């Protein structure tokens, strides 16, 4: 199995072999793990199950230990059911589920880091909402998760996933871009269009800092998960409408990595900048820990 340094390499190889990116990514992973394609698919299926359970866990509406978050996913779900939402069912479900899965994380629930825990609401939100709204099969979901993984492989090589290294753009930006490419593929876009959806996400989330209030993965993480998930949906809607990305996905990933490297430490998960040092942020830190963060 060859190495893939660019997402365009995945596209070229898949097209050369006459297979989907999902199928190629499954073969890639089977090779990497020294397992059969069926074995890696089974592991991914178990991950998908944990993702769905995390959404359900979050929808219970428990509060986090600090009391800062919890219940927003449940609240938005009710608002949807009451028929008050401005957005359609798919957007609304994605929003509610992304909030919920990330709230489950804040409550020390069991989640899949996808790619990180701070961004763990995005993929479950999008995949579960898509499954429900577009009647996707289990097979399509697993395939889609591997497409997201293929994008992740390139992000990991070219840039990074840790907020402490590249800010929130590396966490929520990556999760949303990976999901956008996967969702576009699952909904039948061609490889180039799907790749453009990922590029559009990075273009819009580039520079997003990691500034957790009191250092907790709560504020603003929960809402950024929901917003990033919707960014992915918007990007997929755009490419489905035929809109293209001027900057290709691979170059947006390079840009994300470079921007992360330029980011001061204060804005990389240290709770020393951004929202964390607003008067309210500092007051919360003092309340939670009894001292200024």
């Amino acid at each position, binding site marked *: 199995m060859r190495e893939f340094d660019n997402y365009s390499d995945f596209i070229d190889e898949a097209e050369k072999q006459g297979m989907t990116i999902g199928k190629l990514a499954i073969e890639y992973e089977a090779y990497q793990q020294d397992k059969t394609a069926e074995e890696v698919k089974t592991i991914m299926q178990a991950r998908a199950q944990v993702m769905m359970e995390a959404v359900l866990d979050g929808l219970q509406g428990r509060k986090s230990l600090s009391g800062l978050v919890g219940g927003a996913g449940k609240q938005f779900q009710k608002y949807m059911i009451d028929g008050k939402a401005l957005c359609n069912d798919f957007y609304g479900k994605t929003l509610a589920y992304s909030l919920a899965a990330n709230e489950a994380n804040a409550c020390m629930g069991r*989640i899949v880091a996808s790619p990180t825990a701070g961004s763990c609401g995005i993929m479950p939100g999008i995949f579960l909402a898509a499954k429900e709204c577009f009647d996707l099969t289990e097979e399509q979901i697993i395939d889609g998760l591997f497409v997201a993984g293929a994008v992740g492989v390139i992000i990991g090589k070219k840039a*990074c996933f840790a*907020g402490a290294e590249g800010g929130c753009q590396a966490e929520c930006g990556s999760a949303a871009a990976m999901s956008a490419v996967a969702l576009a593929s699952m909904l039948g876009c061609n490889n180039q269009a799907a790749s453009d959806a990922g590029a559009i996400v990075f273009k819009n989330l580039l520079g997003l800092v990691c500034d957790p209030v009191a250092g907790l993965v709560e504020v603003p993480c929960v809402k950024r998960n929901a917003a990033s998930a919707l960014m992915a949906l918007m990007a997929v809607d755009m490419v489905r409408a035929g809109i293209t990305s001027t900057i290709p996905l691979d170059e947006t990933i390079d840009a994300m990595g470079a921007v992360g490297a330029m980011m001061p430490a204060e804005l990389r998960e240290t709770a020393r900048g951004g929202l964390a040092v607003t008067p309210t942020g500092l007051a919360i830190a003092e309340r939670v820990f009894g001292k200024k963060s």
Partner: protein
Amino acid sequence: MKILDIIGPVMIGPSSSHTAGAARLGKMARLILGESVVQAKIKLHGSFRDTYRGHGTDLAIIAGLLGYEADDDRLRDSFQHAKEAGLEFSFSPVALRNVHPNTVVFELTGISGRKANIVGSSIGGGAIEITEIGNYQVQLDGTYPSIVVICSDVPGILAKVASVFSIYSINIALMKQSRQGKGAAGEDMMIFETDQQLPDDLCTVIKRIDGVKKSFILPSL
């Protein structure tokens, strides 16, 4: 770069780097010590130091030192479990130079009195890297089963150790070496990361080689 490492691991929240990575660093440190930990002095650097309480980094490190996985529900109550297991621990801040922002220093004492000083970093998404064992600079991520060999810094010793792998048909994925001092008075640490699970008697055979002082197996995480 593996897809199941990116969409994964399954873990207890809230932070892959500060909770799951911290648990895995604790577990790796215990594996390096090679026995149950009874005393742990833990020093936190950078973002670990600044935000550990908010992420349950301390709970996760202790869970790891107890041998728990990052998705173990007992992680939330690890301090209580440590008390029951007779593990005494303390946390303190430290400022290190030229290390990853999420770095922890372990000073461990095991049940037989064995001691180990270990430095490691949580490098994102739950991935870890052990950077120091004792005074040796290393680079170990727990991906592969490994064998650590400490020996005199003399010519030919690497070839002798490598020949044992050849006899056992073990493929070396990565090999790293670090040394303190030079020649027979000096000491080398060689770490072989391998593609196969390692048989228990491998260390016994390697320890028979002239100049080998110590050898132990580190299972993959």
